[in-house]
């Protein structure tokens, strides 16, 4: 039973790692703020979710499982809020700079 669960956790953990790496690459390579936010929030939500699910399958008791799920929910909610805030801030910034241009065509910001 536990061997079976252990084996099942591998694809979940690897999937989580994949989303984290993909999110990081997106953060570094994508052209504008919105695309970068799109990439990096996938690491926060889906990536962390898969890692948490994988670790839940390996837990010995139900308390750590509950704690990890709670952490996931908290990170997801704060990540979604932070993403909205950053996107809104970028949008207001763009509207102040030049409202005529559609988003994304303005000069690219240097990567932070």
């Amino acid at each position, binding site marked *: 039973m536990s061997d079976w669960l252990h084996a099942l956790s591998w694809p979940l953990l690897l999937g989580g790692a994949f989303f984290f790496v993909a999110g990081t690459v997106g953060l570094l390579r994508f052209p504008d703020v919105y695309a970068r936010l799109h990439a990096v929030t996938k690491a926060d939500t889906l990536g962390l979710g898969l890692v948490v699910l994988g670790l839940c399958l390996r837990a010995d008791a139900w308390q750590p499982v509950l704690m990890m799920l709670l952490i996931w929910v908290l990170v997801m909610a704060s990540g979604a809020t932070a993403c909205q805030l950053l996107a809104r801030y970028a949008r207001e910034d763009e509207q102040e700079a030049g409202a005529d241009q559609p988003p994304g065509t303005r000069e690219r910001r240097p990567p*932070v």
Partner: protein
Amino acid sequence: MVADGLFDGALGVLLLTLATAVLHARQLYTSVVLLIAFGLLLALTWARLGAPDLALAEAAIGAGLTGALLLSALARCGEAPPGPSRAPPLRVLPATLLALLVGIVLLRALWPLAEGPVLLPALALGQLPAAGVDHPVTAVLLNYRAWDTLLELVVLMLALLGVRQLHSAKQVIPPPWPLLLAWTRMLAPLALLVGGYVLWRGAFAPGGAFQAGALLAAGAVILRLNHLLPPVRWDNGLVRLLVVLGLGVFLAVGVVGLVGPGLGFGPVGTAWLAYPPALAGPLILTIEAAATLSIATTLTLLVVGEPEELRA
């Protein structure tokens, strides 16, 4: 083993890279954001070194509240004017020499720890039954070395008094966005809950007044930034009471211990900040609870406190 070494090595390299980047970033805003990332990685490093107390304090105060303080200072002052990106060589040389000297002094202080027998943990653990708490770090902070912690609270209050003298610029808080408002309404009670838990946990596991105070202050700051809390002013009596509460309780315990035996209050203390074993637990919890409230109020005032009007 190899994976651990790789992880720790990467952590060390990242810390050094971030520290350099903080110093040489073009914009102050970038520096502050990088410093917050540096603080979080430093917390991770303390956790790897087996010091969860320091990790908690670094994450809550070093990364969280210092970051918030710097960001709010930046919001009040604005970006610095663009200057020369590199310091002139005349300034680099003394700075390098000073860094070298400090490095040598630190190494000389640290070297005996790696070489000789380590006596302090055994001493701290040996007296634990009489300390009133089960967590050695809390015993050191609130019992064996309570005098140091008392002075730390004095330093925090002096910092607040110093900032009050500066007559800081008015902080304009923009109207909150609905989503942030909704999330704050959930997050602030959670900060209160976790803060209380961290304070309570300090008696037997990593945690304590400073971490709990930082968490409470974080809750108060986000409430204030969303206009859910009225302006925090120094001329509010409750605010002033909360700021001095921790120091007051701490001093009262010390003074009662000092003069108590002569006045018939023998059981409360036997000397300056020396608690009797039977009462040590409740005394420490009382001091910590008061200190948590003081730390939380002081930090909140430092980040979102209202500047006072100058009276003519």
